Structure formats: structure tokens, C-alpha cells
């Protein structure tokens, strides 16, 4: 029983950065823009948070700084992909390469210094009597709650509002949306930037909550896992919630095994989430091989009104 609770709590704290990044990716892809810059944006978000917090020791300012830095990268990606109509894959990879290198450079001075951070937690005493749930969710930090909240809001935004309809239309058929008076470029810019901000929050969470200590390349491929999880979650924010926690659980499981002193080299255990990603993607692809594809139809395709068909 206790093991389950500890594992679930660990799954949430390891899953939250994944979830932020997946949600950001969903917003990007729903308007038809592939954002492979996730990893780089997360790292920039993390290093910015680290530096700003060491300077100000103000959690709110740090939060804003992470948002601002990632929004800047999002703006670059949006400009390159939407206005310049360049290749989205190349732009995204460039952002990841840039983010990885630049964060390492910025982080040199702060590497290794532990952050004296205490993230406020929300105590829900009325949850206490419920077994399991009470123990897991009764004392969660505010950013984990924020992430769950964002997932739920995004769900209603995408499926229950006129904006959500426009979002789907822009990602599936930009030419139709344009004729219907929906601003394709406007929707794309807004959601690419908003999505990138969520990716930045992923980095923020990673360093402020998950492991308060800057290490070069500390995202360790989580950005790439998040990109795979977008597919796994079928572009649905609530599925994303479940998927992210599941993968967070796998991550945590690796650590648990280490404590059990099972004779498995720790490197293998650390591989679990990545191997699981490959297996899951293969499984999803195989399972849906006869189903109509559900990814946004115009994913990766720049839109130009006067393009001749």
C-alpha cells in the first residue's frame, strides 16, 4: 500500500514536467505546426528559472521569467514556420540545438548550486479520509495542480468552445478556415507561442520542484518523450494527463528498483522510459494501422493563401 502511494506521488512529480511539455506540443500541433524545439525550450526555461531565482529568490518573478524566455523561442519558431514558411522540422531542431548549447553556456556559473526553493503546497484536509487519493493528492505542490488545471481547461477549450473549433479547422484545413474568415496565421502564432510557454513551464517545474539544482542537459530527453506522448495521447489533453503520469511512473519505477537492490544495472533501469516510448509508439502504430489517421491533416504544411493547387 505504501509503495503504491509513494510510486504514485513519484509518478506525478516525474510526470508533471512531461505533461506541461505534452500539452504545449498539443497546442502547437493542433494548429498544424510541428515543434521539435521542445527539449531546447525546456532547457532554456529551466536555466532561466535557475538564474532568475538565484538573483531574486522570488518564485513569481521566476515563473514569469520562464514564461517570457520560452515565449521568445516560441515566437522565433512561429515566425520561421508561419511567416517565412520554412521547414518546421529544421526550425524545431535548430531551436533544440540552440537551447541545449545556450542553456549550457548560461548555466556554467550556476551549475551545481542547490536552489533554496520551497514551493508552496496545497493542503486538502477534506481529502484525507479517502484512502490512497487523500495521501497522494492531499499535499500536492501548486504547480502540479496548475498543470492538471491547464490540462482540464485545455480540454474544454478544445472541445467545447468556438475557439476550439477554429483550432481544429486551422490544423486540418487552413484554406477552409481562411475562406471562413478565421485568421490562420493569427491562430498559429498564438498557439505556437502559448504552447512554447507551457514547454518553458516544464523546464521551470523540472528545476524548481523536481530537482532544484542546475545540471547541464538536465531534461535528459524528456522533450523527445513528450513529442512521442502527443501521438500516444491522440492530441487529447485528458489522455495526455494519463499518459504523462504513466510515463512518470515508469521513470520513478527505475529509481524504486535501484532501492530494492535488484541485480539490474542502474543504466538499464534508467532506460525504461525511453524503451517504453519506442514500444508504445510501435504498439500505437500497429493498433491503429487500419484506422483513419487522427493527426491534424495540415501538420507540418505551411499555409499560403495564393498557393495554386
Amino acid at each position, binding site marked *: 500500500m505504501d509503495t503504491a502511494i509513494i510510486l504514485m506521488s513519484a509518478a506525478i512529480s516525474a510526470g508533471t514536467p512531461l505533461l506541461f511539455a505534452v500539452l504545449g506540443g498539443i497546442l502547437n500541433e493542433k494548429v498544424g505546426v510541428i515543434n521539435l524545439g521542445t527539449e531546447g525550450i525546456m532547457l532554456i526555461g529551466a536555466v532561466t528559472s535557475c538564474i532568475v531565482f538565484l538573483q531574486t529568490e522570488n518564485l513569481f518573478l521566476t515563473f514569469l521569467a520562464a514564461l517570457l524566455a520560452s515565449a521568445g523561442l516560441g515566437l522565433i519558431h512561429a515566425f520561421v514556420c508561419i511567416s517565412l514558411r520554412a521547414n518546421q522540422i529544421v526550425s524545431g531542431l535548430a531551436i533544440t540545438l540552440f537551447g541545449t548549447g545556450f542553456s549550457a553556456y548560461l548555466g556554467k556559473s550556476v551549475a551545481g548550486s542547490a536552489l533554496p526553493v520551497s514551493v508552496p503546497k496545497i493542503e486538502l484536509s477534506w481529502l484525507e479520509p479517502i484512502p490512497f487519493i487523500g495521501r497522494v493528492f492531499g499535499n500536492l505542490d501548486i504547480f502540479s495542480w496548475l498543470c492538471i488545471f491547464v490540462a482540464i481547461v485545455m480540454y474544454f477549450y478544445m472541445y*467545447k468552445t468556438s475557439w476550439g473549433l477554429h483550432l481544429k479547422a486551422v490544423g*486540418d484545413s487552413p484554406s477552409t478556415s481562411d*475562406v471562413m*474568415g478565421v485568421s490562420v496565421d493569427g491562430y498559429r502564432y498564438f498557439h505556437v507561442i502559448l504552447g512554447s510557454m507551457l514547454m518553458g513551464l516544464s523546464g521551470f517545474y523540472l528545476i524548481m520542484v523536481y530537482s532544484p539544482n542546475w545540471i547541464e542537459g538536465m531534461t535528459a530527453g524528456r522533450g523527445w518523450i513528450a513529442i512521442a506522448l502527443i501521438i500516444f495521447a491522440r492530441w487529447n489533453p485528458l489522455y495526455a494527463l494519463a499518459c504523462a503520469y504513466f510515463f512518470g511512473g515508469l521513470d520513478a519505477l527505475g529509481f524504486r528498483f535501484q532501492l530494492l537492490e535488484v541485480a539490474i544495472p542502474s543504466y538499464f533501469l534508467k532506460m525504461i522510459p525511453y524503451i517504453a516510448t519506442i514500444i508504445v509508439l510501435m504498439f500505437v502504430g500497429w493498433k491503429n494501422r487500419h484506422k*483513419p489517421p487522427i493527426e491534424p491533416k495540415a501538420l507540418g504544411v505551411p499555409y499560403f493563401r495564393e498557393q495554386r493547387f
Partner: protein
Amino acid sequence: MTTYAVEMQGIVKTFGEVVACNHVNFSVKKGEIHALLGENGAGKSTIMSMLSGIYKADSGSISIHGHTSRIRSPKESMELGIGMVHQNFRLVPTLTAIENIILGEKKDVWRGASWRARKEEEIAIFANNYGLIFPMNVPIWHLSVGEQQRVEIVKTLYRGADIIIFDEPTSVLTPGEADQLFETMKELKRNGKTMIITTHKLKEVMTVADEISVMRKGEMIAHIKREDTTMQELAQLMVGRDLSQGFELPSIENGKRILIVEDLLVKGEQGMTALNKIGFTIHEHEIVGVAGVAGNGQKELAEALTGLIHWQDGTVILNKELLSKPSVQSLIDKGIAHIPENRMKSGLAGDLGIVDNLLFKTYRNKERTKFSLLQKKKNQKWAKELIEKFDVRTPDLHSPVKQLSGGNQQKLLFAREIDQEPKLIIALHPTQGLDVGATEAVHNMLIKLRATGSGVLLISEDLDEVMQLSDKILVIYNGQIQGVLSRDAADKDEIGQLMAGLEVRKEPIYESANLH
């Protein structure tokens, strides 16, 4: 008080070096149905796209209801009351009809269940007023083309358009659906709507239009009232010369059977059955036409017979040889040639030159390659001979073929395919998008192939073409052969009905093949 709904003056639009519209004047009176007639590439769609805000004119002025207007985006066009029913419908295929219709609405951000129910009722009543019926809550891609068009029309009306542009509206419809569309247009006219219809089909113009404007090669040639003209005159105006009045297909005895297909079952995209147990035979000296509305299995038929996809079940015998899971290469070697649907997508490599494109199917030959090295000089000479023989006009052998005109591209494609002396040629929409001259050239090549003993499977949406060229016509509907007609028994109305799936012949009249 002006009576013109639309006045366009001195409109110029160029794409790179191509002048699509050259000082075009075009006016439409309020409440009339105005036909804009012209061949493919005459500039009809371009000028309509400027009216609907998709293209911006380089110069010229547009007035709507007497007010000079600058239309800079589809949104502004819509605000002026202009709506367009596009040739390739502007519908989001993954959304339902309702969602597509309300897509442009900005008010009422929250879309709960009661809101949806209310809208659904509102739109159902609205659509019924015009007699336009379609499923409301199914994703668009499930709907038939006719239904999709109705959604597109309702969408336009619902958004308050009083000037409606129909861009080649019948190109995707069966004859029956087209008649229904014309009824709808007349109904809309009674409701005081102004309509513009672009088309190259003379009969439609004579059926539905009040006024007619004719365009040719980017220029406006004539404005006429329907009462004052005839089909012959219009044809002459549109093409710029007299149309040849069809031709007689010389009768030749059928030769041996080349291809026998029985109970062919093919799954298409997404695992849906594309061809459901169809059977037919093709003989030497025979053109077999396949008529049908696009998307009824024609593409899959061509792909299966050229080895691009494999069939699930059935028998295919080519020259007495039973085929099973043939590769593309083996079928090329066995003498099947292929004119694919989209010549620039799967027929030719646009960025490569003439020689390379001609080599695609023969580069393995000893003639073309020695010790795995291409015989450059020899191949150039060969290519030169071929393009002279097939009258491909090109600046030189190495300029990218995407710069050639559609007609020349198609002739190049035919040159490559015919050069291998095919036993069977499978031609998919071979004249789509070609002008009259190139179409004639393609028809002549097919007739020549027939004379030299090849079998031809001609898949086309152009019913006239199929009827003119075919010895035997198969009508395909929903993956099944709905009927088989011999050349002499072919009747346009009957084919039209079969194309719509209306009539099922219980007894197939094709000869059942002796397999052994």
C-alpha cells in the same frame, strides 16, 4: 441606382511570367445567373478567386452593388455578401456539416450541448427552406460528393451571401446530381440571389444561364445573352476555332484476350473495400472505358493492375499467366504501361529533364546502360527521336519538365510508356486539365495503340471521352461494376444513372472467362 451586382474592370493578374488575366472586364446584373465559360486555364477560376479574396489583383477595380470595393481577404469578400462554392470544396473533412457551417461564427464562445441542439435545429430549417438535404452530424469525409456540395451551398447561404459563385460545380457530380444542382440554382434565383457559374460545359450554360461571358487564354472574348446564341457559337468562341465533330472509331476485330480479371477484391486506404469482386476482360485491339464518378474505385483498379497495391482476393490473368502479388517491375516487364492520374505527382519527376524522365522505365535495358553506366550520348539521341516522334515541345532536353505545358508533359509521358511497346496500357484521366489540342493528341495516341494491337483500359470522368473512344464501357459505382455496355448500346442517360448507382444489372453481360 445601378443594376449591377458585380463590376470588374481592367483586371490583371500574373503568376510569375504567366498572365492569368489580361485586362478582363466582367459584370453581372443583380438577380441573374451568369455563366463564365472557358477552357481549363482560360482564367475563370483566377478571376473568381479575386472576387472571393483568395487572390489579389495586380491592377483593376472591383465594384460590388455599385460601390468600389477593395477585396483583400476572403473575410472582406464575405462581408460584401460574396460566397463561393469551390471546385475543391472548402470544407474541413474531419468536422461535421454543422461544425463546418458554423465555423466562421465568432459569437457564443461556449458551445455546450444545448447550444449545439439549437443551432442544429436552426440550420436544419434553413437548409430545408432551399430543399437542400444532407446528414448533419457525420464527419464530412463520409458524405457523398453531392452531399458535400449541398453543405457548401448551405454554408454560403447561411453566412448571408447574396452573390454566389459556383466554380466548376458539376465537375464532380453525376448527371442526376447536376440536374438537382440546377434546380437549386433556379430556386435561389427566385429568392433573389445573384449567381455566377464557371464551367467549360456548353450544355450546362444553355440549361441554366441568363447571360454568358466567354474567356479564352486570360482574356474576355464575349458577353452574350443566352437567347442570342447557340452551342456551336459558344464552342467556337471558347476554343477559338471549330471543334472537330467527334470521329468514327475504325472497327477492328478483337484479338486474343490480354487481361482477364475475376472477382477482384481490393482494399483501399483505411482498410475500406475499394473494389468489390469485379470482373472484366480486355482484348487486343480493344479500348475498355471505365466511367464513374471519381472515388468509386477507379484509382485502386489502376493501382492494383500496375502492382502499386495488392489485391486481397480474385484472379488476374495477363497473357495466360496467372498473377499473384506482382511487383511493379515485373508488370512493366510483362508489358503493362501506366498513365497515372496525376502526371506531375506519380508520372514524371518535375525537376528532372526530358532524358531522365524518359529513362525511368528503361534504364535497366542493355540499350540504355552498359556495365551499370548510362549511355549518355546514345540516350540523348534516343530521347531526341522520341520527342520528335511524339511532338513534345520543349526548349531543350535538360530543362525541368515541370516547366512544360500540361499537354507536352502528357505527350512526354505517353512517349515513355508507348516506347516500351506495351501489351496493355492503363490510362487514368489522361486528358484531365488538357486543352483541346492536347486532348486530341492523346486520343489519337490511344487509337493508334488500339490499332497496333494493344489493349487499353481508359479510366476517365469525362463521359464524352469514354463514349467516343471505348469499344466497351464499364460503369463503376461504389467499387462494383454497375453495368457493362457495348459501344453501340451506350446511352448517356443510362450511363449517368448507372454512375449514380441507380440501376443494378442482375446478369453481367461480360463473357465469363474461361480460366484454363
